[in-house]
C-alpha cells in the first residue's frame, strides 16, 4: 500500500476528488429520497380525513372544520379500527400552507386514543419522553426544530404567549416530523384560536355553534386487519357527509407526482455525477497506466507475459481505485459533516450518507478503475516491447 501511495499519489488524489463528487451529490439525492419516502410511508399508513371546505389546516389535514360528530360517525364505519382527532397548523401562519421541506408545524393529537398510523404508530424519541394521556402545557419537538431553536429537554418554548415545556425531542427522521411541535389536541386548539382571527371572531359572535371538541383540522383513521384501506376510505366518503377523505393510494400518487420534479432532478444529478465522476476516474486510471508505458515495455523485455503484466496492472489499479475511493468517501463525509454542521444552525440536514450509497460508490469506482486499467493494458500489450520503450522514452 505504501508503494502504491508513493507511486500514485496524484492519481489517487484525482480519483478521490471524482468519487467525492459522486458521493456528495448522491448523498444529497439520498436526503431528498428519504424525505419523499417518509411522506409516502406516512400517507399509506393511515386514512386522512378533513372537514370539507377551507380552513387553517395544512398538508394532509388541509380542509374545513371536522366536527366531533363527524369523527364519531367515521368511527362507526365498518372496517375502521381507530380514529384520532388531530389539529395541524403552520407554526407561522404567514408562511405558505403548502407543506414544504422547511415548514414548521404544530401537530396536536388526541392523546387518549392510540395513533392509528400503521407505519408510524409511535415516533422515535431521542431524548426525554413521548407525549402521554393527560399531558398539557408540554411539547415534543422534531430534531430539526430543536436544533434550529436551540431547544433541549426541560426548556420552555413560548407559543402565542403560552409557555410549553419541552419534554422530548424526536430522533431525526429526515422527513416532515423533524419540524413538528407535537402537543395535546387541547393545547393545539388553543394555538389555533390564538392564531386565527376569523375563528376567534366567529366563536365570539356566537353565530356558529362550535364547541372546543369540534376544532379539528382532521383525523387519522386506521383500518382493521384484512381490510383494503382504499375501500375503507371510499366507505367513509359514502357514509359520512361533509368530509374530505384522502384515499391512501391516491394521496401517495399525488405525493409522488408532486415530487416528480425532485425525482427527475435526482436522476439527473445521479447520472451527471456518475458520468462526470466516472469519466474523470477512468481517464485518471488510463492516463496513469499509459504514463508507465516505458516501464511496461521494460517488464516485457525482462520476460513478463501479457497475463503477468495484466495481473500486475489490474492489482495496482484496484489498489489505486480502492485507495482513491476510500479517500473520496472520506472527503465527501468530511465535506458533508462540515456543511451539515453549518446547516444545522437552521435545522437543516443536506446530506444522507447511506450504506448503499457509500458501498455503491466504492464498487462503482473499483469496477470502473479495473475496466479502464484493463483497456489501457490491452492497448499497451499490443505494442512490441521495443515500441513501448520508445514511446515511453
Amino acid at each position: 500500500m505504501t508503494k502504491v501511495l508513493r507511486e500514485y499519489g496524484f492519481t489517487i488524489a484525482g480519483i478521490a476528488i471524482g468519487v467525492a463528487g459522486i458521493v456528495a451529490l448522491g448523498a444529497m439525492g439520498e436526503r431528498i429520497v428519504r424525505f419523499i419516502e417518509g411522506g409516502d410511508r406516512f400517507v399509506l399508513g393511515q386514512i386522512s380525513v378533513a372537514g370539507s371546505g377551507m380552513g387553517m389546516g395544512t398538508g394532509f389535514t388541509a380542509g374545513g372544520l371536522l366536527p366531533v360528530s363527524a369523527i364519531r360517525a367515521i368511527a362507526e364505519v365498518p372496517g375502521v379500527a381507530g380514529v384520532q382527532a388531530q389539529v395541524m397548523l403552520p407554526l407561522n401562519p404567514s408562511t405558505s400552507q403548502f407543506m414544504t421541506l422547511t415548514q414548521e408545524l404544530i401537530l396536536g393529537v388526541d392523546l387518549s386514543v392510540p395513533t392509528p398510523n400503521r407505519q408510524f404508530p409511535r415516533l422515535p424519541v431521542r431524548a426525554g419522553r413521548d407525549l402521554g394521556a393527560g399531558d398539557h402545557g408540554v411539547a415534543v419537538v422534531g430534531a430539526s426544530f430543536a436544533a434550529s431553536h436551540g431547544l433541549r429537554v426541560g426548556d420552555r418554548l413560548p407559543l402565542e404567549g403560552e409557555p410549553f415545556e419541552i419534554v422530548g425531542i424526536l430522533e431525526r427522521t429526515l422527513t416532515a416530523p423533524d419540524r413538528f411541535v407535537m402537543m395535546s389536541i387541547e393545547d393545539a386548539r388553543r394555538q389555533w384560536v390564538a392564531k386565527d382571527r376569523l375563528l376567534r371572531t366567529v366563536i365570539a359572535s356566537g353565530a356558529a355553534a362550535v364547541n372546543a371538541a369540534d376544532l379539528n383540522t382532521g383525523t387519522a383513521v386506521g383500518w382493521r386487519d384484512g381490510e383494503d384501506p382504499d375501500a375503507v376510505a371510499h366507505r367513509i366518503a359514502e357514509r359520512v357527509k361533509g368530509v374530505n377523505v384522502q384515499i391512501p393510494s391516491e394521496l401517495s400518487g399525488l405525493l409522488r407526482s408532486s415530487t416528480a420534479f425532485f425525482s427527475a432532478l435526482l436522476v439527473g444529478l445521479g447520472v451527471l455525477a456518475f458520468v462526470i465522476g466516472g469519466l474523470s476516474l477512468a481517464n485518471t486510471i488510463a492516463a496513469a497506466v499509459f504514463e508507465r508505458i516505458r516501464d511496461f515495455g521494460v517488464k516485457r523485455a525482462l520476460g513478463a507475459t501479457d497475463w503477468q503484466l495484466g495481473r500486475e496492472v489490474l492489482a495496482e489499479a484496484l489498489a489505486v481505485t480502492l485507495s482513491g475511493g476510500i479517500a473520496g468517501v472520506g472527503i465527501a463525509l468530511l465535506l458533508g459533516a462540515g456543511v451539515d454542521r453549518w446547516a444545522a444552525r437552521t435545522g437543516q440536514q443536506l446530506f444522507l450518507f447511506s450504506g448503499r450509497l457509500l458501498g455503491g460508490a466504492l464498487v462503482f469506482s473499483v469496477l470502473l478503475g479495473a475496466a479502464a486499467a484493463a483497456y489501457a493494458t490491452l492497448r499497451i500489450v499490443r505494442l512490441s516491447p521495443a515500441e513501448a520503450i520508445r514511446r515511453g522514452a
Partner: protein
Amino acid sequence: MLEARGLVKSYRAPDGGPIRVLDGVDVAVGAGRLAVVVGASGSGKSTLLNVLGLLEDADAGEVRLGGERVSALGRSAKGRARGRFIGFVFQTFLLLPSLTALDNVLLAARYAGRPAADARRRARELLAEFGVVERQAHYPPQLSGGEQQRVAFCRAVLNDPPVLLADEPTGNLDDANGRVILAALRARATAGAAVVVVTHRADAAAGADAVYRMRAGRLQAAPPQGGAP
C-alpha cells in the same frame, strides 16, 4: 546458440514511404562468443538487436535460439523465452524509477519464475561483485550513471541467460565505468554466453570474437581486433 537468417525490417517514414533498416541480415553467434556490431547512427544496429532479442518482429526472416525458431512464437511465448534465455543491457539503463536497485535486479527473476530467496541471494552477490551492494536500497535517481548501468547489468545476468544483448552499453558512461561494463560483457562470453554488443566505441571491438559493420541495413564482417582494453 543465437542465429538469424534473412532479417528484413522496414519502418514507415513521415512521408509514408518505407525505410528499410534491415535488408537481409544473417548473423550467428555461438555460445562463449562475443560479437560486436559497429556502425553509424541510424544504420540499424539497435533494430537488429531488438529483433534478435525478440523485442520486435522482423518483416521477414527468422531468429533461432538453441536451434528453436523463436521468432515464430506467440507473444506470451516470446516473453517467456526472453525471460529465460536473453539478458538485455540498454544504453539508457531502463531501470524502473519506483523500485530500489535491488528490486530492479530482482525483476528479472520475477518473470522467469525463479524462487525469490535464491534470486535475492544471487542479486546481492552480483551487486557486491559490481561494487554497488551498499546502494541496493537506493532508487535509480539517487544513483550515478555508472552505478545505474552496473545495476542494469546485474539485472541482465541475474538468471544467467545464455544470450546477452547490449545496446550501446557504454554510451552514457565515462571511460572508467565503460571499461567495467565492457570487461563484464567479455567475462560473460568467457563464462559461456553468446554476447552481442552494439556500439560506436572502437575499443569495444577489442578482444571480440567477431566484429560486424552495419551499413545500409546490411551486416558485413570486419576483421576482429586483438587485445584487451
